[in-house]
């Protein structure tokens, strides 16, 4: 490898860190999964550069690092494979969040319906229909989330993962988040009418917190599915 082919190597530059930073900037996904994959990738580049280094000078180290970067692949070549895994990781994270939140929503409504003084049993017919629909949304999204976890886990050994699965999980999460928002509003309205209003208000607070959590996960999943 000649200096001309490699370009003028200066000891101050660090091709490995630059490459890892460029790849990181091109990727979207859960911070933990992304940082783990990039940490492994960086360690691999350092090992490769050590193998390719001929002597112990700074200039040689930079040349070896540049060569290692070239052998590992450009950002354009690597990003699709990394992004596919990160999108699946985000879809699984969103699915797990939906699976946790949907039963919580059902529990809140169950509590409100049967707890004395919350007005659930005597709620108007329209409110009861709304409760039933929100419960159905929660149940369907939880089932979809469970199916997504299976389809991206052990089942993926046998069957290819449907291409649109991450987007489906994202929109299921969005539906669950919307159901939570409506639930929170209904709970706030109920707290005004109910004699046991602190329970309604507390339930609304909890639902709002989970709405924020699931809406964030669904938004991140949509972004990942878009860049895939």
């Amino acid at each position, binding site marked *: 490898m000649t200096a001309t082919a490699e370009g003028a190597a200066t000891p101050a530059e660090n091709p490995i860190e630059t490459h890892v930073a460029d790849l990181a900037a091109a990727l979207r996904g859960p911070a933990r*999964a992304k940082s783990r994959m990039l940490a492994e990738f960086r*360690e*691999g580049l350092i090992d490769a550069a050590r193998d390719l280094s001929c002597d112990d000078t700074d200039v040689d180290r930079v040349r070896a690092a540049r060569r290692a970067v070239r052998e590992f692949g450009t950002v354009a070549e690597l990003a699709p*494979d990394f992004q596919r895994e990160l999108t699946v990781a985000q879809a699984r994270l969103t699915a797990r969040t939906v699976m946790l939140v949907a039963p919580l929503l059902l529990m809140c409504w169950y509590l409100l319906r049967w707890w004395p003084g919350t007005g659930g049993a005597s709620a108007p017919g329209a409110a009861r229909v709304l409760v039933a629909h929100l419960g159905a949304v929660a149940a369907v999204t939880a089932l979809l989330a469970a199916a997504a976890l299976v389809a991206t*886990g*052990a089942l993926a*050994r046998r069957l290819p993962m449907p291409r649109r699965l991450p987007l489906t999980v994202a929109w299921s999460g969005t539906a669950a988040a919307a159901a939570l928002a409506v639930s929170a509003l209904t709970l706030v309205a109920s707290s005004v009418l109910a004699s046991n209003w602190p329970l309604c208000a507390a339930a609304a607070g909890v639902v709002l917190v989970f709405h924020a959590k699931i809406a964030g996960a669904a938004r991140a999943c949509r972004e990942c599915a878009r860049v895939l």
Partner: protein
Amino acid sequence: MKASAVRGHLDGLLLSVLESGPLHGYAVITAVQERSNGVLELRKGTIYPALNKLERLGLLRSVWESEGERRRRCYELTDAGRRSLAEERSVWKEFTTAIGSVLDPASAPGPKPAT
């Protein structure tokens, strides 16, 4: 052999080099190249998402190991990974036998073509 040709067989190659014991990502890359005498060209960076996928599928498990200031993630086969590798080998054998029979009928096992 070009990286694009290797791509469809990458999972099997990775499982195969991990059969003898745990390795970290770069050691997996060098093991594949050494076993193929450098014939198989890998886009080395793609190994890391491939290892991640195999772990997600339950075919590998991994742990972080420290070596001085360095931390490396070491992978090893699970029982499901060993079964999957055995299947990969069997499918590959059938495939190469079938292709070999077509490309080189003279050396293929079974009845010889009519002359």
